[in-house]
């Protein structure tokens, strides 16, 4: 599942793995935090038409959704393995679900929240021909998911062992 996992299946810690994953996630988290703060400072946007007809609002929501996707991908593809690696967990042969369950048990994340964010993220890959009210509600759910994911990443990062 992870392009980092090459022929090296040793369970020895890989120097820099966690630092690299965290550096990447931090970058996405910082931009996401700025974009969410700008969005929160705006008056409430009443419907989808108000967003789709306004270039700046479209760009702002796109920025949030893009960084939401990138932060989630970085966490899923890099930080999960890097964290378990740093904790000396024998995770290399575990399927993703077992890795997530282990991290939940250690207090790093809530698996159900993670699955909801996965659904939101996958939904962003396509536009669906649904009613505008539904598309607006879906967008609002994704923005709320972005806020939730950012908080979850901050919690996770605060728990990480020093590099």
């Amino acid at each position, binding site marked *: 599942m992870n392009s980092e996992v090459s022929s090296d299946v040793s369970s020895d810690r890989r120097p820099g793995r966690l630092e690299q994953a965290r550096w990447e996630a931090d970058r996405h988290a910082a931009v996401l935090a700025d974009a969410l703060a700008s969005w929160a400072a705006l008056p409430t946007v009443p419907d989808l038409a108000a967003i789709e007809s306004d270039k700046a609002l479209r760009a702002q929501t796109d920025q949030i959704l893009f960084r939401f996707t990138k932060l989630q991908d970085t966490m899923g593809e890099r930080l999960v393995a890097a964290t378990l690696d740093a904790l000396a967990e024998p995770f290399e042969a575990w399927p993703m679900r077992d890795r997530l369950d282990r991290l939940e048990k250690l207090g790093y994340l809530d698996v159900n929240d993670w699955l909801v964010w996965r659904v939101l993220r996958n939904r962003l890959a396509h536009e*669906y021909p649904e009613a505008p009210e*539904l598309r607006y509600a879906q967008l609002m759910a994704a923005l709320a998911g972005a806020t939730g994911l950012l908080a979850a990443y901050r919690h996770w990062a605060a728990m990480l062992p020093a590099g």
Partner: protein
Amino acid sequence: MRLTPQQQATLVDAVRRHFGATARLWVFGSRADDRTRGGDFDVMVRCDEADAVRLIDARLALLAELHATFDFEDERIDLLLFSPSLHRPPSPIQQAAMAQGVELPF
């Protein structure tokens, strides 16, 4: 239709719980076609709920729950919603899903 009996049962049970007993459920697209292989799960749910936020919340909870099951763990599921009070008339893809899809009875 290319869903295992267990997948059908899991899907029906989850849709009924999240969208209510009066909802209806269709599988359409490649999974409704016995001649193809693999592919995403295209699902359509029709229900009378008029509140878009509740519909979206129900879909999110349903999909997260399905992805937590063995039956759908790593599968891609596209779930379209149709509510008569929000869609007048149904879009072409919704019409096609209801007309050509395979309905899974509750």
